[in-house]
């Protein structure tokens, strides 16, 4: 399978009144065609920054360095015009909340306007037909009625489903999802995730999902990266990362899941202002190297099957040859 998106050494540093802010400290990952890549971490770890970067929503003067290669284009270097060309058709966006629906437009208008712009369809009849087809594919019980409803006439779960329909209506190559399906009841969440899975398999869509909800990761992501304070601490296949977590932070995150007893992690994240090189998790590390010296980690330890851990306590089992 070929790479669709490849992010290399992405760094975001900017000045604020409180000092230098390290939003991202150099992260790299690849997403292949038809793959779902999940990024999990607590709030403030830089998840939203990744999303905004991938969408080109960042202002150009923020100190961004690195490379984001999408199908041969460097997203960081494209101007707005070229980015617009990609939006909708090549890159889709699945927003977090239903506040992303314009309250004064019907669901149908949302879908048809996207189709019209991105697929250059002019005829209203065809647009409507296509929109209804998409709504049908998303298992709405009454697509025609949903087509004509305003967001406030639908329930929260239905609006989320409508968001899915809008985000996927042009079947883009890559969909970026910023905290999708959070704050929904588990039943609705499960069904939505199932729908996403089916859609993705049908149309071979790649996704990047950014979330703090490990359940979402566990259910649909093929690969997962755990982000802590602006840098990755562990990446690999989802089943490896979730079932056999090696980094102490990943372990504590999994312990904090409801079914595992919701044990909170000791201490707080140092925040984006923390600018020492090395392992920023060291002060909270339960395995307890309490030495004053910072752990400098230049390269992650590989434990096989593309599973990488950024921790000194994990022994390198393979040479890190083709990192991502």
């Amino acid at each position: 399978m070929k790479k669709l998106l490849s992010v290399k050494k992405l760094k975001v540093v900017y000045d604020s009144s409180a000092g230098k802010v390290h939003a991202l400290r150099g992260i790299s990952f690849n997403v292949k065609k038809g793959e779902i890549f999940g990024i999990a971490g607590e709030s403030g770890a830089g998840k939203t920054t990744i999303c905004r970067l991938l969408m080109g929503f960042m202002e150009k003067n923020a100190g961004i360095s690195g490379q984001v290669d999408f199908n041969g284009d460097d997203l960081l270097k494209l101007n707005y015009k070229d980015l617009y060309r990609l939006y909708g058709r090549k890159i889709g966006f699945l927003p977090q909340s239903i506040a992303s629906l314009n309250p004064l437009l019907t669901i149908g208008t949302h879908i048809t306007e996207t189709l019209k712009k991105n697929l250059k369809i002019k005829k209203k009849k065809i647009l409507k037909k296509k929109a209804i087809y998409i709504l049908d594919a998303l298992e709405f019980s009454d697509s025609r009625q949903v087509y004509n409803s305003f967001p406030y006439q639908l329930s929260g779960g239905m609006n989320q489903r409508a968001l899915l329909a809008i985000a996927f209506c042009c079947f883009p190559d890559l969909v970026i999802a910023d905290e999708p399906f959070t704050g929904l009841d588990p039943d609705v969440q499960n069904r939505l995730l199932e729908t996403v899975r089916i859609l993705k398999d049908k149309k071979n869509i790649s996704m990047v999902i950014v979330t703090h909800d490990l359940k979402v990761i566990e259910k649909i992501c093929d690969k997962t990266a755990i982000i802590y304070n602006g840098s990755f601490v562990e990446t690999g296949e989802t089943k490896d990362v979730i079932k056999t977590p090696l980094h102490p932070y990943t372990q504590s995150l999994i312990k904090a899941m409801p079914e595992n007893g919701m044990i909170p992690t000791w201490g707080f994240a140092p925040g984006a202002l923390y600018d020492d090189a090395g392992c920023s998790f060291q002060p909270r590390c339960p395995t307890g190297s309490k030495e004053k010296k910072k752990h400098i980690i230049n390269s992650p330890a590989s434990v096989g099957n593309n599973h990488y851990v950024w921790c000194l306590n994990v022994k390198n089992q393979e040479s890190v040859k083709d990192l991502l």
Partner: protein
Amino acid sequence: MWQYFLKRILNTIIVLFGAVTLTFFFMHFTEGDPATIIALDKYGGQLISPEVIDRLASEEGLNRSIFVQYTGWLKLICTGDFGHSLRSGIPVLDEIRLCFPYTFALALISVFITAIVATPLGIYSAAYQNRFLDRITRFIASFQVSIPNFYLAIIFIFIFSVKLKLLPSFGCDNPTHFILPVMVLAVLQTGFTIRIVRSTAIEILESEYVQFAFARGLSMNRILFVHVLKNIFIPVLTFLSLQFLMAIEGSIIIETIFAWPGIGKLFQEAVFGRDFTMIQALVLFFAAIVCAINLLVDMLYIFINRSISFIE
């Protein structure tokens, strides 16, 4: 909902009653004897004598105490009789009915022009913040809101009537007479309206649904003139109704300058001539317009925005 409107209408009646009471007593702060003043106005200095003044006073009921006059007048307006002008003798309602269309036309045309000019400018200004168009628009708008209407009128008369000799500066005979007063009103209103449209549109542009619209690759025009315009429609309409009221208020000065035969000029003349019945009727009329527009906007709110809540 009906209860809400009933309450609003009741409130309006109380406010109108308060307004007329207030003006009635404000007007009678005056030191001089109103009958003498009216007689002076009517007949000039040579012709008045104590007999004439007495006759006038008893004719108009001006020799009674203020409270008797007040209750008498209240009784009359409750029956719909606003009396007749002390100066011309014509029933005030007839005169107002004759003059109001002129003022109404000025206000309506100027607000219409304002809406057409200010809405796109404000939206573009919001979309391209701190770019050339935005800077120039804001620069001009800050001037527009600072120039007093009478000064703008004088400048326009100076430029277009005195220097260029293009447009007539006073009267109301043919459509060209509309141009200058409408221009003055519209220029003043666009300044305020652009600011409001811009700040409202900025709020909308920062909302999640507009960002989502950008992320879907929609064109800028589609976002600005469908997504943003639909959402600023109600606040801007409310503001335009305020501008309409401001145009009516501004008519008092504008119409005096341009000799426009509307209610503004009527009011100014009534004030100068101490035409008490006319002043009172006009104050009530101004207040009624304000109340009516406010009520209308509220009703519009409810019919357009179905999710409004009735907490009040």
